[in-house]
């Protein structure tokens, strides 16, 4: 059973002359232990698919299953719990809370979700792998873009989610840093058995992916 399955999803925005169909019969599955890439140009529907996959947007038709259960069977509160416990998000603009140090970003998770987070030793190992173990007392405005992105990734992984959804995680990174983040996402999927889904138009990540889908005009096709 895939960790995340998107089945026959259509998404339509607007009505009448303003009606736009953003997604057309999209099918896609993300397996645990794999890094799945969804590539495509801006405006092709990648992010819409990501928000539907994360339970933030209800599709016009079709369904999304997480661990075999459809979002349609879950209440908004249950979807919220699912995002808190089983899905980690990495967003394009990092969006770390500006008044929390790196350490406090994790303490906040502890306060909201006291159990089930990575043990201190595992967190230290993760931070070391990401090369940010020395930055615990820094505020986001004291970090570079790449460092912030890696903190955001660590923050998403800290609750030990089964699924990680990443939106353009390398958008602001230079080539060497893209290689680092790509390798890191690949290793996280393989070593920690996570289903990692990355939507991106950055083709430099292709070499790290286990599965690649191409999104064009709302239609998804698997290329790898």
């Amino acid at each position, binding site marked *: 059973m895939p960790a995340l399955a998107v089945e026959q999803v259509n998404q339509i925005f607007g009505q009448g002359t303003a009606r736009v169909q953003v997604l057309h019969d999209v099918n896609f599955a993300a397996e645990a232990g794999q890094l799945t890439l969804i590539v495509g140009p801006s*405006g092709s529907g990648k*992010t*819409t698919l*990501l*928000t539907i996959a*994360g339970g*933030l*947007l209800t599709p016009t038709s079709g369904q999304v299953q997480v661990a075999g259960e459809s979002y349609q069977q879950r209440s908004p509160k249950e979807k*919220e*719990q*699912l*995002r*808190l*416990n089983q*899905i*980690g*998000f990495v*967003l*394009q*603009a990092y*969006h770390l*809370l*500006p*008044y*929390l140090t790196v350490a*406090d970003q994790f*303490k*906040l998770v502890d*306060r*909201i979700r006291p159990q089930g987070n990575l043990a201190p030793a595992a967190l230290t190992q993760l931070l070391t792998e990401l090369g940010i173990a020395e930055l615990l007392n820094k*505020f986001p405005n004291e970090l570079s873009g790449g460092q912030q992105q890696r903190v955001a990734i660590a923050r*998403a992984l800290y609750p030990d989610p089964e699924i990680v959804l990443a*939106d*353009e995680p390398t958008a602001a990174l230079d080539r060497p840093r893209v290689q680092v983040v790509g390798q890191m996402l690949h290793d996280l999927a393989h070593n920690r058995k996570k289903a990692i889904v990355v939507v991106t138009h950055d083709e430099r990540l292709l070499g790290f992916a286990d599965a690649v889908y191409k999104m064009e005009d709302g239609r998804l096709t698997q290329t790898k």
Partner: protein
Amino acid sequence: MFLAIKEIRKEKLRSSLIVAMIVLISYLIFILTSLALGLAQQNTDAIDSWHVKTVVLNANANVDMRQSLLTTDQVGALPKDAAVVGQASVAVKAKGHEQVSATFLGLKASQFIAKNLTVTSGRKPTKASEVLADDSLKLKGYKLGSTITLNGLAKHYTIVGFTSGAKMNIAPVLYGTMSAWQTLKGGMPNLTASAVVAQSATFKLGTSGTKAYSTAAFIQKLPGYSAQNMTFELMIGFLMVISLIIIAVFMYILTMQKLPNYAVLRVQGVPSRVLVQATLAQSLLLVAAGLVGGTVLLVLTAVAMPAVVPMAFSVPLLSAVGVGLLAMGLIGGLIPVRRVVKVDPLTVIGG
């Protein structure tokens, strides 16, 4: 609370400015409250010290002791818990001293008011030429043994004692004998007192031309008393509303600036309850810090304030004002809560 404390600590300048604003507002409200209380007390200190529940006046005196005169027939024989009071407005003058407007209150030494008077120095008057003065006259240079004249009349009086908290209509009180009061009133025949006061709530003289009032009703009718209190209450009320608006505006702006952060937390499954709690906690912490600052300033003011300024500090009353300001902070913090609850996680995910 965690988010609120962290944000306040990180954004020191912004938080300090808000706290400074609340310090000034709370200080102003505290000062006005203390001033209102002080002035109110200076209207009623003397009456309060008698612990009476009923005041009987001439029915045509418009509930004003200064204008009330009772005859011997109207007063008659009084029970033990009732006493006569003769009131006269006087200008106190003594050689080398500033002239002071005061209220002369004539008492009968055998009745409970005179018996219960507390003397801070000297003794109670026993002769028609002796008076017991409020402590505030000391600030004007009067002392034990000072010889004074009242209203420029030839008769001289000697201050034989001082008492504290003896004020009526914001003027210091001179307690004397009933015969001294009768002299001040021109020795009108058959005149017994201005009023009869009693410790019983049901006391009445029952004679024609007299009317009994509760002490509370009598105090409300003191000249300027109600108007003065209402003025202060209105000012304090307006300041409360202003503080509510200021807190609400600041909290709204702060919250609007944080909405993208809150949207990210919503994406990550953080319940809106946590974000609402953070907003309210931040508001309460800022107001509480402002109240602490306002209280410190108030204490310093109380220490430095000259005794002539009519201020009184009541911890329960000031605490109630503080709780009121905290409530304003809570309400002010609630205003942006709707935006927090409605924050759309999709706004932070690119298209």
